[in-house]
């Protein structure tokens, strides 16, 4: 059995970190510099892997450690590096221009967070870690979704997609007693990696063909 103290601590820590993830998300939304965005995403992923680690430590569930490690390697190290590289490769430094300005997007995100809470209210989760973590996960997902809508640059959309992914993973880690079965975790992980690579390839090609990454330019297919 686990010493109660750690459990108490972790039951404090996990929601905290989750909330931090949400904060980072909000920063992402407010933030305009592309490179900073990537760093923020890295931080968020770091928090995620941290949560995974804590969960793993709590239940000393070995395969959740694997998740933590994979997340760290993949989302904290590899992807940011890849994206940075891409950014340098296709020299774009000018900041991203959102459709909505920061304050109004903030308001919307607040509303979405509320929605997340209200939706997850009905079922109190399995044990002490879960409940509002789930709400946060949902909030992450919705805000990430909004972020995706709100950004024009192809790369930032990729980032937004990844934050959505983070939200889902948070749910996966926090909600289920011991995370998902390993095979699933692996599958998901590699899918995400491949997805990012495919996206990278497309971004690269788009850059080549359109001399820009502004997806606003991709509106030729109508009707």
């Amino acid at each position: 059995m686990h010493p109660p103290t750690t459990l108490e601590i972790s039951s404090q820590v996990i929601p905290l970190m989750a909330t931090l993830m949400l904060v980072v998300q909000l920063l992402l939304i407010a933030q305009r510099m592309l490179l900073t965005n990537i760093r923020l995403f890295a931080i968020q992923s770091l928090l995620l892997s941290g949560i995974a680690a804590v969960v793993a430590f709590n239940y000393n569930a070995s395969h959740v450690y694997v998740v933590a490690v994979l997340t760290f390697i993949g989302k904290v190290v590899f992807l940011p590096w890849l994206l940075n590289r891409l950014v340098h490769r296709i020299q774009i430094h000018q900041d991203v221009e959102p459709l909505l300005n920061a304050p109004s997007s903030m308001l919307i995100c607040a509303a979405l967070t509320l929605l997340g809470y209200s939706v997850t209210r009905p079922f109190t989760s399995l044990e002490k870690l879960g409940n509002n973590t789930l709400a946060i996960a949902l909030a992450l997902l919705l805000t990430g979704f909004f972020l995706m809508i709100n950004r024009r640059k192809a790369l930032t959309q990729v980032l937004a997609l990844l934050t959505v992914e983070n939200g889902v993973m948070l749910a996966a880690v926090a909600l289920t007693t011991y995370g998902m079965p390993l095979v699933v975790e692996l599958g998901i992980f590699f899918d995400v990696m491949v997805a990012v690579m495919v996206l990278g390839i497309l971004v690269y090609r788009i850059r080549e063909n359109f001399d820009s990454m502004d997806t606003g330019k991709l509106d030729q297919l109508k009707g």
Partner: protein
Amino acid sequence: MLLLTPILLVPLSVALLCLLVPSRRVMAALGVLAFATTLGLGIALLHEVLARGVVREWSEFLSADALSAWMVLLISVVSLATSLYAGRYFERDMAAGVITMGRVREFFVLTPLFGTGMFLVVLANNLGVMWAAVEGTALSSVLLVALYNRRNSLEAAWKYVILGSLGLALALLGTVFVYAAACKSHPDSLPSFNWSYLMSVARQLDPLQLKLAFVFVFVGYGTKAGFAPMHTWLPDAHSEAPSPTSAMLSGVSLKIALYALLRFHILTTACLDGGPDAGFSGHLLLGFGLFSMLLAPSFILVQRNLKRMLAYSSLEHMGLICTGIALNSPLTIFGALLHMGYHALTKPVLFFAAGNIHQTFHSLEFRVIGPGVGKVLPVTVVLMGLAALSAVGLPPFGLFFSELTIISGGLAAHQITVSVVILVALLASFCGILQQLTRILLGARKPGDHPTDARRSDGVPAMTLLLGSLLLFSVWLPAPLLELMHQAAAIIGGKP
């Protein structure tokens, strides 16, 4: 002996082989070989399923019931026709210099991968793995859509991948919820994530959580299956992809996503059954199915691009299938499954013909193609005409029967408004397709506008294969297949 494993391994190995093979012809041949094999295996699987009920391998990691077997057959047939057609198609493309050998290789590598992914979707027992497989199909098909590396194809691919992976993220969340529900019902141990297991414990799962999960799964897989209003990527991707890929996307890929959705639908129905909101998932399916059916025709009516029109027609048919399943009477579900099959045999023909037209006139815009295609490509036009008749649901083609079955089933279920809506939608899309095709296929060429490089026999084998089997199966279905479909219908209807 193993059945499911080879079904996965054969196309996979062919894909790897194609990385090495030098010549285009060999790659094409390999593709045909692969899917011919899987077709054979599929038929074997059919009998196996009829004999044993459910076929499991790798300690239930792979399992196939009637529904999966049916899907395996569909995938194999469409992929087989596609690889039959692809050889000549890319030969002409390369001759015309619109595509490099590298890209062609990409196609012949990715297509079997695409197939493998779809096979895995229908054979995986584990819902998480199923999700991963769906994502895999999405990723491989994205690259196929972007094959021509033109501006339009890239745009289409981008929209496809963004909407697709976003949707799949939602689907993943839904999947997680389901698993969470499972964990909640058995807090002590790490429960299995197998569909069969979940079905067995369906009654103990938390209905509220499952409802929520289904909402996410529905929006997620629904996006992939192209339900309006999440369908927006569909016409772009289907029209900009090379015609063989369009055929696969329209012929099976949509149905695969629907299959994934159906698994959850069955689970949810089983869980919510008898509860306050029983049939919740059914209502969603019905609503969105009808909405898609109603939305599609208006786009067909004012459509200017051949393949986009075909894509919208696919939207229509998906809506109908969905409605048929949602009506949830054995007859309508059976009709819907049959509809899947007939549609899978019909739509590729149309896309192949569209491919020929595209390669002859170098455009898909109706006004560029102009009237009198029949004077240039008589054979293609005849085959396309037949396929179009089937697509709009005229006898003696099977879609006529399946549509009528669904409609009369709707009446039998006292859903007269549903039936009327279906009829109206079908009528509208009929009008659209009829007048658009009449405009381009019939008539005389404009003077001095007679393309020289018209090849009359392109793709005829593939098309005749499909149309022939369509006609055959419209008037006669082998008893085992019938039995299989009845069992599949029973599974969907929640009475296994």
